């Protein structure tokens, strides 16, 4: 089970090049697609989810041409869109039942069991008869997961799944994904580094439609070993330091900026070695430093 993407290119009508010759090989398991907003993650995922036509390129799943045999792909596809709505005045139970029909679960008895099990799995069973429109963001997201998982997908695409979830809900969601991620291809797009660190054995960093890195998170972090330096500075010094050094990131710790700098040796007096993490990788790659 392997998804191969070759030379995928997509330019929108307004001239934005969302994907620029993207090549990726995505093995079984959780695959994290990391990138800032507007990087092209959602475009890539919508193409793989058969909803969008690329300008050029190929997508293959175990030899199956995803772009031209959409109906077959949809039979084992689970897709959680980045943002989705619900029908007005309809309960979670009815909506999920309807989507299960569309997914091909035509037999009523079988479908009822599947829907019930799925609602229990995402912890919505108690509120199944409430209108979906009244759900909180987290509940709605869990409903989205439930509809994506129905029908035992072999290819699961979840676009920014943790957006709007509180930390507790995010953890529950991670567990749910980790459970199913062992046997199927799961593509998870996110702009939250933590998601990838906790979940994914493989990842790609994508920015402005290009793949900047593809591989395992550990390898990426190891490549920065001994090259990241940190220092707490004052706000006034920040512009000067940014001009002199390859600053990866600056974030406030207790109100004062803590900057991470990339350098083969100690950049200057006052810097201390820092243990690199995936976030450093992310920002270094995006800034074109590493």
């Amino acid at each position, binding site marked *: 089970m392997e998804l191969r993407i070759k030379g995928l290119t997509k330019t929108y009508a307004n001239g934005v090049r969302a994907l620029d010759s993207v090549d990726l090989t995505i093995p079984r398991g959780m695959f994290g697609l990391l990138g800032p907003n*507007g990087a092209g993650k959602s475009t890539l995922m919508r193409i793989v989810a058969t909803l969008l036509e690329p300008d050029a390129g190929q997508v293959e799943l175990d030899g199956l041409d995803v772009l031209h045999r959409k109906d077959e792909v949809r039979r084992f596809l689970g897709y959680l869109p980045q943002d989705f709505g619900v029908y007005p*005045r309809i309960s979670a139970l009815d909506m999920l039942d309807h989507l299960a029909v569309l997914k091909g679960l035509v037999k009523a008895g079988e479908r009822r069991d599947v829907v019930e099990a799925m609602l229990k799995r995402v912890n919505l069973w108690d509120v199944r008869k409430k209108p979906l429109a009244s759900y909180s963001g987290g509940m709605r997201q869990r409903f989205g997961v439930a509809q994506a998982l129905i029908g035992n997908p072999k290819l699961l695409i979840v676009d920014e799944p943790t957006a709007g979830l509180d930390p507790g809900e995010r953890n529950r969601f991670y567990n749910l994904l980790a459970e199913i991620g062992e046997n199927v291809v799961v593509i998870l797009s996110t702009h939250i580094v933590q998601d990838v660190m906790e979940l994914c054995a493989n990842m790609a960093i994508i920015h402005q439609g290009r793949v900047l890195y593809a591989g395992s998170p550990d390898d990426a972090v190891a490549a920065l070993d001994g090259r990241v330096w940190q220092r707490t500075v004052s706000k006034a010094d920040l512009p000067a330091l940014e001009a002199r050094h390859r600053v990866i990131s600056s974030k406030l710790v207790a109100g004062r900026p803590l900057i991470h700098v990339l350098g083969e040796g100690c950049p200057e007096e006052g810097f201390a070695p820092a243990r690199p993490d995936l976030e450093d990788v992310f920002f270094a790659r995006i800034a074109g430093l590493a």
Partner: protein
Amino acid sequence: MLGTIFSFEVRYWLRGMMLWVFTAIVALLIFGAASTDSLVVGSQLENTHRNAPHVIQNFYSVTSLLTLLMITAFVNSAAARDFANGTWQMVFSTPVSRRDFLWGRFLGSVVVSVIPMLGVSAGVIVARWMPWVDAERWGPVHWQAHLLGIVDFAIPNAVFMAAVIFTIAALTRSTVISFVGSIVMMVGYGVGEALASDIENERLAMLLDPFGMRTFSLMTKYWTVAEKNTVALGLEGMMLWNRLLWMSVGAAVFGFCCWKFSFAERARRVKAGAAEAEAAPGRLERDSRRCPQHGVRRDSAGGSHKLHSQPDPQCETRLRQRDFSGDVLADGHYPGNVLPGISILGLPDPNSLHQRLTPVPDLIRIPFPRAGQCLRMASFDHRTKTKTDNMPVSSSSFDTSPSQPPFSQDFHLSGPIFTPPAAPRSAAPCSRTAGASDGSQPTSASSSGRA
């Protein structure tokens, strides 16, 4: 698959309020028209039984057009619900075939569209038992007329209207455009009626009415009162050909929809561009914890690092995917909008002089002054011709009860001086009609038409 999508569609509406509100509106209108003379739907009741088969079928023929805007609500939703509510990505990534999806939704919405028309039968049947009606003018319940009203008018007209509206809504993915389309259809019908009234060839005229109203009135114009009281027009002769023709047109339109409709995304989405603009550096926000270069920020509570503050996904969805004008026409809010719309329907009825469908006719004409004028002229013209033709044979139609002024004669007299529909608008027919029909209750057609 098709069956379950169909039944979902039907159940979706059966559970909601809107369908029953619409059905009740139709039933009330017809109830009022059947039980009293102060409300007129279609044409003023003649001296037949008030529940004569002819009357029932006439109600059915008029109601089809009356419910056009109601049907638009159901069909719009069935065709464009996934675009209006932002569920299309979930729905269209399922293996459901386009054929099952479109046919299931379409047939479901057709069945739902027929239900409000059944209010005609309910209204007529209930009206009989009101204490104020004159029992002598009521015959036994003529079930065949109810059935044939449904077969001749309700179902074929629902199929035709639904096919057109569904196709517009599904292909444009916009409920607003299809709503406009249904209004255009209504106005266009009135204009078409005006043009068709010039057609010398009756068979052609009978064939060309997409709702079968003219077909019905022409086919029954020589009927005696006794016939109107006892015979219901079946699906026969020109009526059959008319229905076949317009069902075929509907089928062709829907076939086009099936051919063109695509689950794939439209190119017009500019999401990436919008997102990129937001990600551009230098955009400062109130959040002082953000780094100006990369937009890093530390979420002190959760300890996670994000690019930018997380936008509220629901809010984003609304902004990006919903057009709010569509909201106005969407499910919940519809009845409030459709009610004034229904009153427009007082205009385009071809059989009536008394266009007093609602007690507030002035409300009607404000949005469509020109169309209203046009439609009203069409109505008068058509009626006049029919009546003129009618005169020598069916003298019985002039026997009117004392409570009703013999306005039909007036039609006849005024007939020859009517100008063709294309002529400049003249208030003369209106004022004449108003005076002739009921002196104490002018129709206000002429005055508001000029306003």
